[in-house]
């Protein structure tokens, strides 16, 4: 446990040692507010909730989360520090977990900094704070899943740009998995069961049901399994690719 927190602390500290963290947070806050107020029609809707914010969040995450995850492992490999990290007396799992938790905590900090929206909506009206809390939880879980996918892809390449693009594509497919855009590709040839299974993998479906305020165990399980699976895959990919 302490090894995980040592790795996590080092990683998180390194985000804030460079301007990257501040640039990310500022852009995230500016864009999320712009989406909420202009595209989402926060005022015009006349409803005291944060739906406009959470509706656009997946699309914002689609580009911003891969920007965080792309450097997770590819930078370690490029700079050779992976050799240093993995010859320390820590297990592969602790290293993967520590780095993932640092990235997740970072995204969490950025998300937490949107709290003025929550205050605003409480000031203007009488929202269902339970729903808002559930939405935040859902958003965090979704970001974790994006990050886990990004961690695995980042482990597969030492080029950060490649990692970024592939992660965006992979996340896009998973976000859209419940929509015709993705499902039509499979409908023509795959059995209905498979198509349903793919539809069930959609981020949006699970996120939407959590952000309605219903914290269903199945939705939680979906995200937890998603994160677990991709982190496990990360560990395997790192092990396979560390030699080159």
């Amino acid at each position, binding site marked *: 446990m*302490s*090894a995980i927190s*040592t*790795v996590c602390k*080092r990683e998180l*500290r*390194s985000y804030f*040692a*460079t301007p990257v963290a501040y640039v990310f947070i500022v852009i995230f806050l500016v864009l999320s507010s712009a989406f909420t107020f202009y595209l989402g029609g926060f005022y015009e809707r006349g409803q005291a909730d944060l739906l406009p914010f959470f509706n656009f969040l997946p699309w914002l995450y689609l580009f911003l989360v891969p920007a965080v995850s792309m450097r997770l492992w590819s930078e370690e490999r490029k*700079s*050779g*520090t992976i*050799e*240093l990290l*993995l*010859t*320390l*007396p*820590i*297990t592969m799992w602790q290293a993967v977990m520590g780095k993932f938790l640092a990235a997740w905590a970072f995204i969490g900090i950025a998300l937490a900094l949107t709290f003025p929206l929550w205050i605003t909506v409480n000031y203007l009206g009488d929202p269902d704070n339970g729903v808002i809390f559930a939405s935040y939880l859902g958003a965090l879980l979704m970001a974790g899943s994006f990050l886990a996918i990004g961690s695995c892809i980042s482990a597969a390449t030492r080029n950060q740009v490649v990692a970024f693009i592939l992660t965006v594509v992979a996340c896009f497919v998973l976000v859209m998995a419940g929509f015709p855009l993705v499902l039509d590709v499979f409908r023509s040839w795959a059995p209905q069961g498979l198509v349903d299974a793919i539809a069930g993998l959609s981020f949006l479906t699970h996120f939407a049901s959590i952000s309605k305020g219903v914290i269903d165990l199945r939705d939680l399980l979906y995200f937890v399994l998603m994160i677990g699976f991709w982190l496990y895959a990360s560990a395997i990919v790192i092990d396979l690719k*560390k*030699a080159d």
Partner: protein
Amino acid sequence: MIETQALGKRYGDFVAVDGITFKVEPGQVLGFLGPNGAGKSTTMKMIAGFLAPTSGSARVCGFDVEEQSLEARRVVGYLPEGAPSYGEMDVRQFLEFIADAREVPANLRNKRIDDAIDRLNLESVLQQPIDTLSKGFKRRVGLAQAILHDPKVLILDEPTDGLDPNQKHEVRTLINAMARDKTIIVSTHVLEEVHAVCHRAIIIARGRVLADATPAELESRSRYHQAVSLTATDVKAAKEALSRVPDVASIEVDAQDGRITAFPKPGRQIFVAVNAALQERSIVVRELALEGGRLDEVFRSITQGGAATEARA
């Protein structure tokens, strides 16, 4: 103690390390020599627990690097090739991270860190991000993290690469100072280093051990071992005198500086006879030296000679 048994690493069809067996005892410094791509780094990476061997095994202080990976890694200090470190951290932060990851006990933590800083003279750059340091300092930071937890086994991949002569000297002094109670493997391209720090040298080429001996033994394999070299005003007369010494096998004259070298017949010593022959004819000699042997020549003949025999086979 480090012990490898037919240690091998293969990538698809390419054999990087082809069954290396050796043993290093505490108090010994083993030098790893070999051309680039010989498998030195790969071998060290396997012992340090970074790469898994595809055949054979390696043990560090009795711990198998695969079966008891964590225990083995705990007793090893490792300087990877190129001395990588986290560039955005400052030196102190970086060493603190290593101390935590290595689970240095809290009461020893600051003492160990200060000790490593002191030994590698990092005092002046403690607050600087590692990225902004010179190559020499980066290498020393890498060494500092390797010795931080006072490991029983040290694996140093080219520890003096990129250092200036003064820094090289300091690092060698450091290795010698630590050698007493530790088991150390050092890889190097610099042959003079073998003399300065190693008790034993292994020459590797194409993943195989081609020689395993003390530096002195390696030198004795040189053509130059026990040869006598001299510079004389009258080169012709000197050559003539040398050719009459019975145990001299051949004589070479360096075209550039006119230095004459007389090579003995195998197993013979000619210094005394040569000296006598020169005096007898009153040949004026400006300089006369007994050659110990040249490591670079031995290195070349072992690593390239091996290629020739293999090509024939």
